[in-house]
């Protein structure tokens, strides 16, 4: 129960982290301290210093500049994946949960099938059919994450379908679509939003994994995941190479996790 309008501390902390990171990546579109893809053989593997905030990599590129660029890519990919899967999952979940019946069975069994495979493996199958590239990664992961949202929205819809306010809406002559989206969905929204933020985390990690496997962004363009995979070879000699992008990923996920926990907490 909300007693006053005070914002939850988790939402505040998570929001602050996300805003700072977003700002950083936004600035990265117009300005980076160094040219992110410019190689400089003279300044290979420089440790973090005032000149190079996160050090330099094996081509002498400034890691901080590349993180700024890569952050934008990773965030865009993560958000696009969740927008695709969240929208489709919400619609499918509402339809299957509200109407039930044969269509529900069929859609849920397809979801089971998708869930049956490890997501990275399934993404690899999609990529080998569609071809590599960032758009296809978004598409593949977007489809793979649909079942998790469908499941959450469906079970909540089933719960609310039997409430008297839904019955009385039906008696008043409110249409099924309006009942689903206007009467039921707002009740589910906070649960849905919490699962969306968790979904963003998973999407960011999956994108990092895909780039790590070399099927995400094409070099020399940077994403946090691809940088991390490059850094692996130099973990002993230049640990700061992994530290820059790695910490940024952790920070971003921490931000979204705090946000989702805060939303969940303040909604009940």
């Amino acid at each position: 129960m909300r007693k006053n309008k005070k914002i939850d501390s988790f939402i505040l902390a998570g929001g602050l982290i996300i805003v700072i990171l977003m700002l950083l990546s936004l600035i990265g579109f117009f300005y980076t301290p160094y040219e992110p893809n410019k190689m400089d053989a003279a300044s290979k593997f420089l440790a973090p210093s005032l000149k190079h905030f996160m050090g330099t990599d094996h081509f002498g590129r400034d890691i901080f500049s590349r993180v700024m660029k890569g952050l934008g890519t990773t965030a865009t990919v993560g958000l696009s994946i969740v927008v695709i899967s969240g929208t489709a999952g919400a619609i499918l979940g509402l339809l299957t949960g509200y109407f039930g019946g044969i269509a529900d069975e069929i859609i849920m069994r397809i979801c089971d099938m998708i869930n049956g495979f490890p997501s990275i493996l399934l993404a690899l199958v999609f990529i080998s059919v569609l071809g590599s590239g960032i758009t296809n990664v978004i598409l593949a992961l977007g489809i793979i994450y649909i079942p998790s949202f469908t499941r959450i929205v469906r079970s909540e819809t089933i719960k609310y379908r039997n409430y008297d306010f839904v019955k009385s809406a039906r008696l008043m002559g409110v249409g099924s679509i309006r009942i689903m989206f206007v009467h039921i969905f707002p009740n589910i929204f906070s649960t849905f939003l919490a699962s969306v933020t968790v979904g963003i985390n998973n999407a960011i990690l999956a994108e990092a994994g895909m780039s790590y496997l070399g099927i995400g962004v094409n070099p020399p363009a940077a994403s946090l995941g691809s940088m991390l995979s490059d850094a692996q070879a130099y973990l002993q000699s230049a640990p700061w190479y992994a530290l820059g992008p790695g910490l940024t990923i952790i920070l971003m996920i921490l931000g979204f996790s705090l946000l989702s926990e805060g939303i969940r907490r303040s909604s009940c």
Partner: protein
Amino acid sequence: MSNVLEVRDLYVGYYNKKKLFEPAQYKEVLKDITFDIRENEIMGLVGQSGCGKTTLSKAILGVIPYKSGDIKHMTTRPQMIFQDPYSSLNPVKKIGWILEEPLKVIGGYTKAERKDKAIWMLEKVGLSGDYYNRLPKELSGGQRQRISIGQALMQNPGFIIADEPVSALDVTVQAQIMDLLLELKEEMKLSYLFISHDIDVIYQMCDRVMVLNNGEIVEMGEVTQVLDNPKDSYTKMLVSL
């Protein structure tokens, strides 16, 4: 006096499929139900749980199909008032929205007209216009039940099924809600089918009453006549409880 509802020879049942490859078994819930509800009348419906009270109200509202017989409504859009005031209002919507939604379905009202009618209805059910911007969780059970009644009346239904509308409330609030229902009946020329298991409530509220046992009407007539002087053994048992 004309009728608002005529039910003739109504049979309702459902198919119960227990095993996958066996044919479904038909189970009859209501048998040979015939009754009328007159204009501006409260018809009581008593019976133990499981006797088919809720099935009858669902069949009347057209939520479930019936096997044979005839249900004739003389009013449009009959409404229902539910037992549990905590699940009958949408928890995330403001009272104003809840009251205006029935008007949006009908259409033809401007935003200002809808708001005027919602506030008018709030006053009609004994609350003030201040409740317009409140959420259901800020209201007590009795206040919620008032809102439910108001929402049911927004479309000018003429006939309302009240399914145990006061059983979830405590005694003092019960009396208030019953008074409200009686007032509104006179003011808005309503008829109720009033379902209850509480003989005292039926006695105070209803003009006529029918007693349902095992899906059959065993006795029907004026409240005073049926409850003061029961003829059927089942009715005698109910009254003596």
